[in-house]
């Protein structure tokens, strides 16, 4: 790891100001950034920690659903979202291991947008709103491909707002080594229709499966998916599985998620 400066602001305004400096980078839970710095693949001059900002932490009910501060750790979401949005809480409680869950944050995960991360599936399937220091971004506009998002330079996520579905479930099939999602599917049923988001599978990162959404909106049952299939084209192919396998898993997991939705 190269030397760097660490600043720990206590307000969003201070954080934004600090991030305006040359070579500054935001640090949330550090579960991705710190390992890459240890490997010297990333060498920021300054880290601006977002974890000391009180207004960016916590879980509460608010306008249009559940509001979660971006610097809230997975372990806190797992506990505090359990009553209002059990499928989201369960997802948070299934990320990594206890050490990861007590460090990693929801905002960090969404800002990084790892193609195998769990939270992007929840945000996209819930039609969540990503609130930043500058604006509100609909999840459908936010995710822009593997590790790519709508965030501008110096823009930080402050809060995520989740509309609460009637029923939802997230199921992930774990990659055997990392236990990230080899494929993960979040199914959420709203009065306006069903949304299905798939993570871990595509070279373009998290995506909505439109055909499955239409079929499930008409009939929220696993059988509604029988005739559908996803193509392996454009899916991630690596040591742990082919594109076809991931496409197949997406269908299996969608069916299982429909059964598990509560």
């Amino acid at each position: 790891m190269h030397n760097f400066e660490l600043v720990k602001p206590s307000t969003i305004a201070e954080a934004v100001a600090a991030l305006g400096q040359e070579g500054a980078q935001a640090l949330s839970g550090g579960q991705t950034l710190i390992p890459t710095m240890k490997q010297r693949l990333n060498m920021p001059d300054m880290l601006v920690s977002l974890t000391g900002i009180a207004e960016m932490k916590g879980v509460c009910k608010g306008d249009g659903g559940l509001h979660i501060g971006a610097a809230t750790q997975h372990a806190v979401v797992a506990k505090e979202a359990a009553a209002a949005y059990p499928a989201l809480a369960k997802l948070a409680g299934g990320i990594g291991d206890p050490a990861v869950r007590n460090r990693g944050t929801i905002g960090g995960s969404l800002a990084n947008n790892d193609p195998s991360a769990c939270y992007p599936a929840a945000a996209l399937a819930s039609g969540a709103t990503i609130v930043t220091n500058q604006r509100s971004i609909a999840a459908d506009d936010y995710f822009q491909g593997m590790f790519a998002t709508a965030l501008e330079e110096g823009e930080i996520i402050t809060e995520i707002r989740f509309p609460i579905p009637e029923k939802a479930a997230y199921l992930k099939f774990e990659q055997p080594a990392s236990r990230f999602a080899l494929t993960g599917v979040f199914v959420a049923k709203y009065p306006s229709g069903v949304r299905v988001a798939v993570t871990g599978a595509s070279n373009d990162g998290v995506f909505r499966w439109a055909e499955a959404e239409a079929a499930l909106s008409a009939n929220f049952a696993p059988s509604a998916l029988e005739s559908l299939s996803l193509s392996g084209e454009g899916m991630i192919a690596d040591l742990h599985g082919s594109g076809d396998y991931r496409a197949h898993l997406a269908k299996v997991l969608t069916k299982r998620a429909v059964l598990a939705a509560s």
Partner: protein
Amino acid sequence: MPKDGGIGASTKRREDVRFLTGKGRYTDDINIRGQAYAWFIRSDVAHGKINSIDSSAAEAMPGVVKVFTAADFAGVGGIPCGWQVTDRFGKVMQEPKHPVLADGKVRHVGDPIAVVVAETLEQARDAAEAVEIDITELPAVVNMKAALLPDSPKVHEELTSNLCYDWGFVEENKAAVDEAFEKAAHVTTLELVNNRLVANPMEPRVAVGDFESHSGQHTLYTTSQNPHVIRLLMGAFVLGIPEHKLRVVAPDVGGGFGSKIYHYAEEAFVTFAAKALNRPVKWTSSRSEAFLSDAQGRDHVTKIQLALDADNNFTALRTDTYANMGAYLSTFAPSIPTWLHGTLMAGNYRTPLIYVNVKAVFTNTIPVDAYRGAGRPEATFQLERLVDKAARELGVSPIELRRQNFIKPDQFPYQTPVAVVYDTGNYHATLDRVLEISNYAGFEARAAESKARGKLRGFGLAHYIEACGIAPSNLVGQLGARAGLYESASVRVNATGSITVFTGSHSHGQGHETSFAQVVAEMIGIDAGQIDIVHGDTSNTPMGMGTYGSRSLAVGGSAIVKATNKIINKAKKIAAHLLEASEGDIELKDGKFTVAGTDKSVDWVGVTLAAYVPHNYPLESMEPGLEETAFYDPSNFTYPSGGYACEVEVCPETGKVTICAFSAADDFGNIVNPMIVEGQVQGGLAQGIGQALMENCAYDENGQLLSGSFMDYAMPRADDFPMFTVDHSCNTPCTHNPLGVKGCGEAGAIGSPPAVVNAVIDALHRAGRTDIAHIDMPLTPSRVWSAMNA
């Protein structure tokens, strides 16, 4: 004597107190005043020509002491290989040079090119980024069969090809084997891969070099399974340091599994640099570096065939194996696919004719050497998969086909057609036992229950034999070993009766400090708490060969028994003098010497005190003191064996395999500490099942390591397994060592992979998928699904 301290007691491991309370003293805990830190710059290409190395900018950076390259090692020997294999034509193997630092060429990703030594590790790493290395990448040799094509690039220009050796065993049997195949009623053929593994001990390797200029004394602290072997190899062959000027210390070591047997370049480097710089030099491997620099395991590609007569008797076996050596010959690499593999191909069976062919191949990959089991898992896997396939082809029970062809209990000692003689065993007993403890009788009911849940259940069996207690020195010498394989022990009885045992074995997780003390406690009849076991330091232990090949109790324990017997013999003489009786009348029981048939006695401390305060002592005929050394060289290998049963559920939707139950019935001969033995088996099973289902060291076509971290290399976690059922009630003691012990360290890793794969194939066949004859390890969800959807 106290019931919990002797042979057969499940005494809790005394070393665990320090390990679990953070008081262990590992090599990385050793910091010497004034030490500098070494950072290795490693190749990021698999094969390349080094055009230039410019370290001038780096040497000017803060804290940098010196940047070393191959030029600094001009007068130094290469890393030696400890075993020379002779091929089928009587020619010795091709043995390339293995420089400490890459000289002109890099041959695998991770090959060390230069080393920065600096005041701090971070300064060394900063400077390493400023060393300019110009490399022209060359085409990499990765696939073994392609490596043997005439137009393949060569890993080593000085060799005639990438073939290390073409070994045939038993070469004289080849024609007879081929003839038996022509006459066979049935031939079963199987082609398979034994996947490459990374050992990944919990503690990565560390080396600290120190040098005293006033005495010329070198010290190397290192994470080794065999410090004397390192002293011999590094002192004599690499750096030219006489043994009396070189001390090698392997303190607490956090697991080895074979990967810490070998002499590595980093050890030679820190020892060399400590003298060159006249200050201590330390290197600590990161986990990432361990993936690139620790010797890896397995990596065989095999075609195996079994010939059977019309009554399903095995009549002949032949194999054709390609074994990956990697880019250089690691210390014992040539012996693993040959003498530790070919000699085991009889397995538990009476197959009369066997021919094994092994082509060892150089590739631009990290060197391969022994990994828990070493050759024996490769032999067992192919044989036990083949027997299973034969049974399915013939429509007979895999259990009964095995039972029919097993060596019978009354046929021991049994001369196999592959040189070795099994002293004892009872394979029918371990088979019966494993079927009992796995409740095979209830399998159909469980399978029905799985089916009701939409899962495919399968039952897999495997039997194994291994050759442990390595090894008779004169025999291995004939086979090409460049070392003896005896073991040593010194037993030092102190004046007040406590005992310090110095052993040449090395404990890096095996629990020797507990079990070896149990042996001595039992023999003398004193409390095990009075006995300490010392190991791992060449300055205070007799020349020993270390720990691997499940040899420590069978060979090292036997040396301790020999030395303790010498102690007892001398103590009896002293007792006879003190009791004014004849030596032949003295009996030792529960730490007390008694004149037979009388109540005249002297206790242990009375004798030990007399030995060191010899006022009333036969000084004219006997030296004072009570300290004895013994070396034990075994007359044969030991042959642990066992039956393993695995029960799996396969999810037909995802291909995921879940281990529902795993049962092991092992014959380890006599057992000193059943709890430690069970722990060894459990750990071995975790590694074997890990190989079968999860672990895979993969390279791409350019020789880049695809599984270079735990993000992609699937190390098993505890929740990947059920509770294992471990049994060692079937015991046929070894006939040729004094404890009657066989060794238990590798069994779990040897017997479990074929049991797992057999169970998965069974599940698929029961579901009607008889077209799937084999799936290569690891049986990941994706591979099983692909096989089902091919």
